[in-house]
């Protein structure tokens, strides 16, 4: 994944910082609560939502279990329609392919539609190193690029910025990238959108190369599908002479008909609309309409490692709607940057440790970035049981074991820093499996309760993290089982 993400602090520390940023908390709370209510309304309009959800999950399961078959089918169809298909095993290979294709056109700049895959591979930086400038054209990506910032949300990468901050970024930075912001630009969203329209139009009209991702790739027809709102996608997909689309191998759906499921699930889950303003579908190239050259780069970059995990595999069903981010109480307070990858929120917490492994401390901390409240699973349009995968990945962190990394089966060691926890869990299991010892411990705690401090304000060791903000309940005079023994005896006498 992108280089800027490496060396990030583990999730808890970054999240802790975010919780103290009152403006960030306010921005995220406002945005996520706005979309939550709208999504619920959009979904409630369809009384067959759960059936669509089941169908969506099943279509993706079918695809994943026969991924090689569908990829070969898609490759043949795209080639037949005049496109060229490239395969990239990792981010570096994908970036090399794209840079090479751009260079061959003789161009030094590209316009980009928002694409999670190229965010993941760090394509912009790789192109920059080759002397090629990539212009992001999605409004939120533009805000991020102009602000020298990092995306913090899948759908709305600048969700951490409010209108005032966006106005300041536009005023300050637009001139260095092209057409400056209008004099006296205000913070009305419509005004800000207008400023982006003016700023980007000259770039769209002169661009010779466009770079995109895709929401879906239909295997039987070789058709690519991009859903968007602003029209920047249509600009990038239709005006340039050359179009390069970088698409994760899990984006495949088997048939044209399967789109009837996803074109209902995705807009309502994502922007809470019945349908997003623009969807473009294309198959290879078309004479006299749109790009004359089309390149499809199929990206692995850890996806096959996730595929090899029969529990974690379901994360590859993800259609990047971001509904799970919008309902997540942890995301709402930690913000997207704390997740340290292109994929923040609950889906990021299960995708990143599978795509990158759990050797980096940040990646190993992600499976714990959840209270397991289950709100993400409930809204997921393809029914990914995110809590189940989180717990599964926690096991991988604490126990290590056999996993697939870069396509090879390897055995990983348990992550560092869990020895005390492991010992405590073993001890607890032993105690719980020996009720007499458990009862003795409970009684001891009860009988010594007068010796406990009147308020447990500072606990030792890791428990201190609890006592920093919360009291512990007082130990009662006797455990339940002692009361039960007396109760039963008394009852026996009565009867």
């Amino acid at each position, binding site marked *: 994944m992108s280089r800027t993400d490496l060396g990030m602090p583990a999730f*808890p520390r970054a*999240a*802790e910082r975010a*919780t*103290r940023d009152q403006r960030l908390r306010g921005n995220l709370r406002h945005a996520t609560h706005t979309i939550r209510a709208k999504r619920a309304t959009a979904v409630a309009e369809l009384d067959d939502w759960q059936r669509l959800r089941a169908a969506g999950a099943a279509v993706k399961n079918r695809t994943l279990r026969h991924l090689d078959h569908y990829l070969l089918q898609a490759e043949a169809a795209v080639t037949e329609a005049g496109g060229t298909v490239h395969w990239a095993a990792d981010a570096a290979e994908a970036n090399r392919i794209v840079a090479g294709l751009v260079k061959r056109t003789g161009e030094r700049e590209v316009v980009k539609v928002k694409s999670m895959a190229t965010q993941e591979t760090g394509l912009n930086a790789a192109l920059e190193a080759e002397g090629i400038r990539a212009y992001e054209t999605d409004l939120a990506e533009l805000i991020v690029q102009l602000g020298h910032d990092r995306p913090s949300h899948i759908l709305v990468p600048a969700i951490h910025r409010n209108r005032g901050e966006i106005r300041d970024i536009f005023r300050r930075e637009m001139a260095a990238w092209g057409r400056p912001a209008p004099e006296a630009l205000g913070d009305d969203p419509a005004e800000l959108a207008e400023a982006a329209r003016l700023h980007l139009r000259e770039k769209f009209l002169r661009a010779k190369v466009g770079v995109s991702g895709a929401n879906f790739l239909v295997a039987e027809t070789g058709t690519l599908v991009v859903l968007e709102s602003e029209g920047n996608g249509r600009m990038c997909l239709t005006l340039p002479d050359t179009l390069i689309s970088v698409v994760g191998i899990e984006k495949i759906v088997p048939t044209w008909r399967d789109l009837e499921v996803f074109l209902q699930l995705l807009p309502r889950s994502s922007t809470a609309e019945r349908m997003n303003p623009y969807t473009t579908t294309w198959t290879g190239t078309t004479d006299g309409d749109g790009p004359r050259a089309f390149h499809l780069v199929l990206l692995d970059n850890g996806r096959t490692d996730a595929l090899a995990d*029969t529990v974690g595999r379901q994360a590859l069903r993800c259609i990047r709607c971001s509904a799970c981010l919008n309902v997540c*109480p*942890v995301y709402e*307070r*930690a913000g997207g940057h704390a997740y340290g990858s292109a994929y923040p929120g609950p889906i990021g917490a299960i995708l990143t440790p599978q795509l990158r492994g759990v050797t980096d401390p940040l990646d190993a901390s992600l499976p*714990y*970035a*959840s*209270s*397991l*409240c*289950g*709100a993400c699973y*409930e809204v997921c349009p393809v029914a990914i049981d995110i809590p*189940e995968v989180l*717990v599964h990945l*926690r*096991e*991988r*962190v*604490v*126990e290590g074991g056999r996993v697939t990394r870069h396509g090879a089966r390897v055995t990983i060691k348990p992550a560092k820093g869990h020895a005390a926890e*492991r010992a405590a*869990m073993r001890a*607890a*299991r032993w*105690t*719980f*499996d020996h*009720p007499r010892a*458990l009862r003795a411990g*409970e009684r001891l*705690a009860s009988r010594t309760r007068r010796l406990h401090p*009147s*308020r447990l304000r500072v606990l030792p060791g*890791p428990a201190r*993290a*609890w006592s*920093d*903000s*919360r*009291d*512990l*309940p*007082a*130990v*009662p005079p*006797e*455990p*339940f*089982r002692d*009361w*039960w023994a007396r*109760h*039963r005896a008394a009852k026996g006498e009565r009867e």
Partner: protein
Amino acid sequence: MRVALFITCVNDALFPGTGRATVTLLERLGVQVDFPAGQSCCGQIQYNTGYRHETEPLLRRFARVFAPYEYVVTPSGSCAAMVRENYPRLGERAVAEGRGGELAELAAEAVPKVRELTEFLVDVLGVTDVGAYFPHSVAYHPTCHSLRVLRVGDRPLRLLRAVEGLELRELAGAQECCGFGGTFAVKNAAVSSAMGADKVADAVATGAEVLCAADNSCLTHIGGTIARTGRGPRVMHLAEILARTEADAPSRTAEGFRR
């Protein structure tokens, strides 16, 4: 009908009043309750922290201890959810790992018996008016696992609405997690605390005297936050409200947070 109470380790050690209330309530409704002493913990905290293998002996114990009973009633949404959702998973994984079907069989026996308290009252006993009297204003926090894993729906609210004298107050953002999440509360203490503070703010805004839930782990978090800040309603397990009758002297339970 042979009914066993699964008290859960947290309630046994820290909240025996919830257990006493559950027994009182069930016996008042004519249920013969038994408490098999061999029970201990469902293993939720181990499982959810990634120690699946440490949970397996607890599954075996659970299945063995409760084998003679028709129903296992528990006043904890998350422990009921652990058994119902994750015990079958423990079995499946063991099968997938080539370790045989023993755990899967034990899980299949244990799972259908388990009822969270409000499920047992409404579905098995068929009651919503349990004859309780509690003349106080109360807000109800649904707790995540009751809400989204067990899907208890409005059962707790129906029970509360039937309590004489009780004034139910609506809790804003009720479906949001309180931020407990077991070891999450310690591993991501800052986010957990922020969630807890927001939950308490919503509870305070109801103006209710009591915040209740059917899960003491969540109430430990919410109550611990309230005790620290000194501002907020008293927290109580739902069972303790349902157990109260007009005959009860207005007494406070002995355990809980020192205020």
